[in-house]
């Protein structure tokens, strides 16, 4: 149905539940180059990539160009309005806001990327094993996924963050624990359909070990779905991390991220100190929107490939 739909109206965005069926590997040629060519025709995708590149440069290269003291507080220079030597002003303990934004960007992006990577790897293996092995193993593994999914994500992450004291590593772990479920479900669906393909059956018939088949045949052929989902998981991780820090359960000072900055700035909401609120909030929204653009475009590009097959 969705194929007719997309053919009828090229601009139509697929619904959030539209996932490609089956694998993504085209017979012969270079599937990745074809996907890339569809991807770069999508203007929103280019905008998304540009924003992500800009954010990474800003956070990691920025501090090399724009030197600020983000270690020592400067209580003689607090809440200074933007202008002069502080383009975005200073915060309530005298840190330069622009420099702080870069430092926060580093931890926000690093934690989100690491958590998304961990969640994708664990979710992929979990889903591939459950889908390929099937039977009672599948039933038990998926009921575990269902049970964790039944706990609303923010509830689970608040609970875990109050049990484990938040530092960079526990934050990555906590965000990943909440995020591995969607990849697990998607990859399981792929694995179930791949299990019946001739090449997987041939590998099984020739006595291929289960672990080998999962790693060598199931996972690589589900890679399209995995990459698309991983992109959304990064956006999701940035949101979760920001929400957690906004709610005061992020990393303890002096560690910081965009959510912590925002949470801190909100104490001055009624005093017109906009530079403590908008820069951090915009950084979060822009980055999340950018990763969502990229994910949407990747999914659309993969669907085009599937249709051409």
């Amino acid at each position, binding site marked *: *149905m*969705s194929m*007719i*739909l997309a053919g*009828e*109206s090229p*601009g*139509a*965005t*697929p*619904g*959030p*539940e*539209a996932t490609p069926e089956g694998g993504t590997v085209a017979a012969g040629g270079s599937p990745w180059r074809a996907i890339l060519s569809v991807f770069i025709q999508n203007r929103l995708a280019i905008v998304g990539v540009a924003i992500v590149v800009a954010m990474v440069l800003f956070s990691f290269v920025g501090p090399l160009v724009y030197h600020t003291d983000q270690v020592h507080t400067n209580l003689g220079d607090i809440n200074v309005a933007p202008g002069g030597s502080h383009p975005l002003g200073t915060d309530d303990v005298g840190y330069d806001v622009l420099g702080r934004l870069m430092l926060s960007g580093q931890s926000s992006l690093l934690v989100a990327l690491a958590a998304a990577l961990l969640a994708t790897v664990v979710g992929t293996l979990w889903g591939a094993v459950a889908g390929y092995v099937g039977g009672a193993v599948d039933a038990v593994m998926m*009921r*575990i996924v*269902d*049970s*964790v*999914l*039944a*706990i*609303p*994500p*923010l*509830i*689970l992450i*608040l*609970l*875990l*963050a*109050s*049990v484990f004291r938040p530092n960079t590593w526990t934050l990555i772990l906590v965000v990943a624990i909440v995020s591995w479920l969607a990849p697990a479900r998607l990859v399981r669906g792929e694995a179930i359909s791949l299990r019946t393909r001739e090449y997987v059956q041939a590998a099984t018939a020739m006595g291929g070990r289960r672990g080998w088949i999962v790693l060598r045949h199931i996972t690589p052929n589900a890679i399209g779905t995995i990459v698309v989902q991983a992109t959304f998981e990064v*956006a999701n991780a940035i*949101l979760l991390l*920001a*929400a957690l820090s*906004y*709610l*005061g*359960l992020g990393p303890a000072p002096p560690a910081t991220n965009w959510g912590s900055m*925002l949470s801190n700035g*909100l104490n001055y*909401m*009624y005093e017109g100190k906009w530079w403590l*609120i908008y820069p951090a*909030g915009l950084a*979060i*929204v822009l980055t*999340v*929107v950018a990763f*969502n653009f990229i994910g949407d475009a990747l999914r659309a590009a993969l669907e085009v490939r599937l249709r051409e097959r």
Partner: protein
Amino acid sequence: MTAYLVRRLIQAIAVVFGVTIIVFLILHALPGGPARGMLGPEASSFQVHQFIIQNGYNEPLWIQYGRFLDQLVHGNLGYSYQYNQPVASLLSEDLPKSAVLVGLSYLVALIVAIPLGILQALRRNSVVDYVTTGASFVAYSMPTFWLGILLILGFAVTWRLLPPEGPQGATVAAVLHDPSAIVLPVVTLALVTIAAFSRFMRSSAIEALLQDYIRTARAMGMPERTILFRHLLRNSLIPIITLIGLSLPATISGAVITESVFNYPGMGLLFWTSATSHDFPVLLGATIVFATATVVGSLLADLLYAVADPRVRYS
């Protein structure tokens, strides 16, 4: 129908059991052990020792889990050392207020999203479609707390039209007594839902528009209005039932944030304050209640779907 119902019910019960196991495991992962976690940092080591013996925390795990389930079934969720109240009574006081917030925002979201999605489908690839689709994409990507903050900054700080804080009060009646204060929390929670629902409604209506029965109705010269209401609306509404069920976890997460942003006295605010003060009895009890609500919600949605679309029952 009965077979489908039974199968679905067994699945739901299995998931609720799974949740109790997860919560039981977290109870044992608490810093200082389960007894210390339940009594709080103020309790003396003698009290902790006594609590361990009284509650059998020195017995084998499977016996402890049995006792844990027994307590749950009898509605005993522990005792909050922060509030000096049983967790069950804290939750039963705040749950209805959260239900009001979530219910109102779903209502607003459906009233806006259904016509919006159909409009986008009918005028697809037009300026109206691009603008509204783009707007819902941005709203969908916005963190709930950022949306709430922007609304407060606009409507409460700059224009001074609405209060920046949610309605205060111990009961549902007291909360509803202050309608102007409930507007911003409801709108915040509804906006994210509208974004998700209208996107879904759009693709569901586009799909329905391509069906043979619509083409036949048009060919027979049926008025466009009749086609719209009798055929398009009714058929594209069915998937919305599932969507409400599926969106419950996200909406509950959104409600926690909304309640924290607006200081709205519901279960989400209680959960947040308990998380910051490490009040584990409340956190664990509330987690079970939230998860059960999610499971019951998606079960109801599936059953309603089976009633609305008989094909599901036989699959």
